[in-house]
């Protein structure tokens, strides 16, 4: 049988990339849990958590330890196996999604070129959508297995919400695929690595502004964030699908949600804002510094979108459920189709 050309070194490189990416993701989750509350404090003109460690920096650690030592309550009516499985089904796919996102320019070490991306799939964008479509299960099964009214209602609602916006999200990126002619995210980034009309960075945001608006709205709905956080609407549904969850199982839902935020911010960066491209600079000519620069550019852009998530959360009110479904089906889908047609017409005229 032919070997796939996988030497021991390659496996080690893959493992190193996996550990770095997952490590940074988990670290970012900790930062986000603190950042969210600190920013809430700032916006609402109060302090937020600032007691554990300097400026409350150790708060996430304290929270984590607390979650591990909390009582694990499994409701007597719950469907035990699925009840335990559901948080895993949220966190697992969330951890896998980052695999195809390129987080820096190619790095060459002792004559070996290493892509700063875990898996270079030729169906990269679809891989993300496939995992996204799976994240519904965790919510819906968590709600169902709890065998309690609020979680069940919350789970069903969030599932209906996620599937509705998944369509517009899928349609929104079609424009980018048309421009790029590939589903590989590294191709999408390389394609944005030039200049448009000689002075603008060739970022897709300038070519697909409508697509980006659709994408970002759909992303907020997919990640269940304000103004689309209906599944957890406290006044109506108590806590939504995770009402009956406690200890680290509850935290797994939260971690999954925060990792989804990170991934979707990274995806917005990659698809619409040039990925790791630092405008007006040819990274490949700078060697190792170029790689470093590209990683920083990627981190800064992703960080901006993460901040936007938090900012929006403490600024906008929540939709009503019928408004949410109406927006998804009656506004977003026609707009997304319109975007595709416009893109097609413009491309055939040029």
């Amino acid at each position, binding site marked *: 049988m032919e070997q*796939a*050309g*996988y030497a021991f070194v390659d496996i080690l490189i*893959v*493992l190193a*990339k*996996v*550990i770095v990416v*997952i490590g940074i993701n988990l670290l970012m989750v900790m930062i986000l849990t603190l950042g969210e509350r600190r920013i809430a404090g700032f916006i609402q003109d109060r302090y937020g958590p600032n007691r554990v460690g300097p400026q409350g920096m150790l708060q996430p650690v304290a929270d984590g330890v607390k*979650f*591990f*030592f*909390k*009582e*694990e*309550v499994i*409701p*007597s*009516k719950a469907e035990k196996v699925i009840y335990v499985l559901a948080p895993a089904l949220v*966190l*697992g796919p969330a*951890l896998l999604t980052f*695999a195809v996102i390129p987080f820096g320019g190619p790095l060459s070490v002792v004559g070996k070129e290493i892509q700063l991306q*875990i898996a*270079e*799939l030729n169906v990269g964008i679809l891989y993300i959508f496939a995992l996204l479509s799976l994240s519904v299960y965790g919510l819906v099964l968590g709600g169902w297995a709890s*065998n*309690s009214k*609020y979680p*069940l209602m919350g789970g*069903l609602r969030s599932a*209906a919400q996620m*599937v509705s916006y*998944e*369509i517009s999200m*899928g349609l929104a990126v*079609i424009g980018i695929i*048309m*421009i790029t*002619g590939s*589903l590989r995210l590294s191709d999408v980034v390389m394609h944005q690595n030039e200049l448009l009309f000689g002075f603008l960075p060739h970022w897709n945001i300038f070519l697909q502004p409508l697509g980006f608006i659709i994408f970002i709205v759909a992303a907020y709905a997919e990640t269940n964030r304000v103004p689309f956080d209906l599944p957890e609407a406290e006044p109506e549904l*108590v806590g939504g699908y995770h009402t*009956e969850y406690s*200890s*680290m199982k509850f935290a*797994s839902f939260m971690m999954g949600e925060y990792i989804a935020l990170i991934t979707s911010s990274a995806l917005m960066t990659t698809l619409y804002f040039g990925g790791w491209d630092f405008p007006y600079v040819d990274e490949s000519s700078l060697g190792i510094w170029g790689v470093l620069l590209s990683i920083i550019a990627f981190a800064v852009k992703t960080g901006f979108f993460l901040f936007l998530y938090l900012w929006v959360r403490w600024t906008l009110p929540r939709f009503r*459920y*019928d408004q949410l*479904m*109406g927006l998804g*089906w*009656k506004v977003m*889908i*026609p707009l997304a*189709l319109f975007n*595709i047609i416009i893109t*097609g*017409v413009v*491309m*055939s005229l040029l």
Partner: protein
Amino acid sequence: MVGELVPILVLLAVAVVIVAGIIGLTHLFGPKHPDPVKLSPYESGMEPVGEARTRFSIRFYIIAMLFVLFDIEVVFFYPWAVVFKKLLSMGSFILIEMLVFVGLLLVGYLYAWKKGALEWD
């Protein structure tokens, strides 16, 4: 290619270990003092009333059904979008093909709208 699958499987393995670790450890560390009231379904402090699993609005079914259909439509869009630029060099036939496809689906979409399937009350 198998080579493309390996990194994903490595990542999958690491993710499984992390998730199982988190859920397993919290099971080990947490205290356990179960009592019937604590383990009963949460209904804002009231005695739980009736069954949780009742029948739900048919709308969830319609939404799920429409989702399946539109999702398949989106799937058809991907290969089209990938080859769009290449086939455009042979004339705008490729665009017209998709316009026909979208046009037919739009009929279904407008039908759904008119019949009130997209309303949520």
